[in-house]
């Protein structure tokens, strides 16, 4: 089985998973009764009673459940994801996604990159220097990292770096928002709601338009949330990498490599690391899931308007439309992330590519 075949097979496997996901969200929405479903699709700017009749017909809410599911999916594909009513935004769910998703993507990717760049080399170094002072230190840090409640770390870090609690000189990072509002006022490629074009991700667009002050402002706003999120993820990745690397270094083929007179740094880099990464990569998908869960908390504490913040607002306001939208979307993001991880895994391990 060549690599292309594997990719095609894996892509096809996406479909049942996505269908399963949609079924779960659908089932959830119908679990609370018809009225909750209706409230999800009601346009707040138009009269209620009129729409109620329309919606019952459109989504066949009096028909058997599988019929409802069919029309639900039809609605999804036609772009009707319902309406959301929260203090920060009221309007169609699809528009809300346009506003909030890019910020969350920005946050998640920055955090993940930081976590991987620090976590994997740290885990490797820890394993190579097993039982040394460095190793013990990193293990302690890793332990603290996985035991820390994410919200607590976020609070502490905000106190430390965004307020004057420790000392005025530490108050260097902003406490909320995605970017300094003063900077974006009147900028041509940012519209009134704060959405930038063309990619909607503020940092990338700032670079595209060559506007460095906005880029750095966005960076400053994202650093604290990303660092908080990354901390716990680093701990997880580091522990997995260390365990995997220790096990790999005991393998026979490492002994063979040494018996060939290969210098130790090449043994570690070429022979050990690649094998050690394999189980770590399989776990990366799960770690990303944890990251997305953390996003919900982090955005709330830092007032960072992304999917997580929106989700919490929807929850507090009983906003069924918003909840359906965010749940589905979070699921889709995770499925895609797992897909990418699987592809990475196939790239690294030739046994998968060529079939065992």
């Amino acid at each position, binding site marked *: 089985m060549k690599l292309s075949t594997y990719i095609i097979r894996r892509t096809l496997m996406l479909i049942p998973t996505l269908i399963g996901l949609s079924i779960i969200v659908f089932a959830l929405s119908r679990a609370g009764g018809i009225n909750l479903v209706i409230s999800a699709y009601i346009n707040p700017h138009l009269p209620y009673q009129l729409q109620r009749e329309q919606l019952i017909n459109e989504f066949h809410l009096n028909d058997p459940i599988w019929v409802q599911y069919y029309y639900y999916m039809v609605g999804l594909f036609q772009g009707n994801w319902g309406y959301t009513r929260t203090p920060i935004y009221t309007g169609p769910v699809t528009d809300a996604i346009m506003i909030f998703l890019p910020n969350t993507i920005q946050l998640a990717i920055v955090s993940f990159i930081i976590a991987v760049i620090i976590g994997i080399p740290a885990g490797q170094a820890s394993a190579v220097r097993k039982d040394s002072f460095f190793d013990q230190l990193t293990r302690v840090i890793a332990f603290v990292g996985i035991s820390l409640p994410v919200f607590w770390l976020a609070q502490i870090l905000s106190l430390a770096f965004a307020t004057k609690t420790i000392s005025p000189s530490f108050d260097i990072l902003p406490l909320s928002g995605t970017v300094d509002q003063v900077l974006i006022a009147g900028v041509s490629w940012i519209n009134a709601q704060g959405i930038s074009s063309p990619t909607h991700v503020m940092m990338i667009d700032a670079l595209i338009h060559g506007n460095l002050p906005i880029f750095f402002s966005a960076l400053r706003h994202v650093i604290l949330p990303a660092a908080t999120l990354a901390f716990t993820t680093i701990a997880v990745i580091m522990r997995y990498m260390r365990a995997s690397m220790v096990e790999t270094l005991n*393998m026979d083929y490492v002994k*063979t490599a040494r018996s060939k*007179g290969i*210098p130790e740094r090449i043994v570690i880099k070429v*022979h050990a690391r690649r094998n050690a990464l394999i189980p770590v990569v399989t776990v990366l998908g799960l770690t990303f899931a944890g990251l997305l869960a953390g996003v919900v908390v982090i955005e709330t504490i830092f007032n960072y308007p992304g999917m997580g913040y929106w989700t919490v607002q929807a929850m507090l306001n009983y906003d069924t439309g918003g909840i359906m939208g965010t749940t589905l979307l979070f699921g889709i993001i995770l499925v895609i992330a797992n897909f990418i991880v699987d592809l990475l895994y196939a790239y690294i*391990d*030739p*046994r998968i590519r060529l079939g065992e």
Partner: protein
Amino acid sequence: MEKQPLLIVRNLKTHFVTWKGVVKALDGIDLEIYPGETLGLVGETGCGKSVTSYSIMGLLPPTQGTIVEGSIFFNGIELTKNVGKDVIIKYKGKKAKIKVNRRAYNKTQDFLNKIRGKEMSMIFQEPMTALNPVLSIGYQLTEPLIQHKKYELMMRILARHTLGDKDFEEIKNAVFGEEKERLMELSKDPLKYALIEQIKSIYYRKDLTSLQKNELLNELRKKKGISRFHLSVYKKIVESKYESIFFKIPLLSSYLMRPLREEANKKAIELLRMVNIYEPESLLSAYPHELSGGMRQRVMIAMALSCDPKLLIADEPTTALDVTTQAQILDLMKDLKERTSASILFITHDLGVIADMADRISVMYAGNVVENGNKMQIFYNPKHPYTRGLLRSVPTEETMKSKLHIIPGSIPNMIDPPKGCKFHPRCEFAMDICSRERPPMKEIEEGHYVACWLY
């Protein structure tokens, strides 16, 4: 005129630290291997054969055990010069702690890495796990060549491109005519030697007709594929012996390496042919999991022999294979024995295999060498009670008629071994002195040594 031994092991003691106590795996063993001979190391599982090979190669895991006493000399070089300095065991009554001095240990490993793979190499027992699953066969096979034999690779390229047609003809005729003395004369010129090697590999191929061989030779003669820049740099490097410096400069070194990798691949194919693998070209890009156990072991042998080592350590190379494959591999090794001039340390528990392969035999028991002699002496005149027990317990036609002979008891606890001769609890000839003092090695006939109080 006595030849000097290639490998001398004297009073080697290796200890492992476990939480149950200190395992004295090797308790003062002596070994000698002469150039060109095969020494068989026989013994039961657990007697320390593998530990011996790891100790010689310096592959003992430093957090678990190390050489604590004794010396190993290889080709005149002392391999054990850092004993006691890089990995230290502190004894506390029955238990002990092991500590690694990272810097000293790294120095030792760097020192050993110049010898390992190049002068001394090893084949392992489990071919299934000994190869790295995520690296191609080609990469793993060419790895030692690129690490140790850059000079030779450059010479091969230079030989093809700088020697004239006259030299070509002269060498070709010498090889094809099998004129051994002529070849020895010509081999004195390193450039010509490199060409001889390449022509030889074509000549010895059994799967080609003369016509095809001539075609390949003409291919060799064509001076294509290497830029003049490469050639001139190689010339400089080869003449000045400043090889390592050139290859440390980042961009330059990867540029220089490209033709060398190609050349290493060619050599790898030659090596695979030598171990009787058909269609070796397709194997280079294959991965270990695509090969059978027998093929993997052949690849390991090819890898171990790639840099023409003086000593090959074969640690139970056929134990994990089925009987037919075992026979194939043994035949292959016998064949290679004749073609190369390497010494082999052949470790096994199978007496039948030893009888086939070894010139001399050392018998090990519980961390000591108990008997030492050539093949005939050991098989037809075994002296040590353990050796005799071993030979008697091999089923033969006569023994089929009666009960199978076994040596009573089991191997001793290596943390707390018996005092005196370690075999005395199981020995039918045990005397009083056997439980008090360890017997020294005595020469009972020429070249035949035993460690037993009976003599």
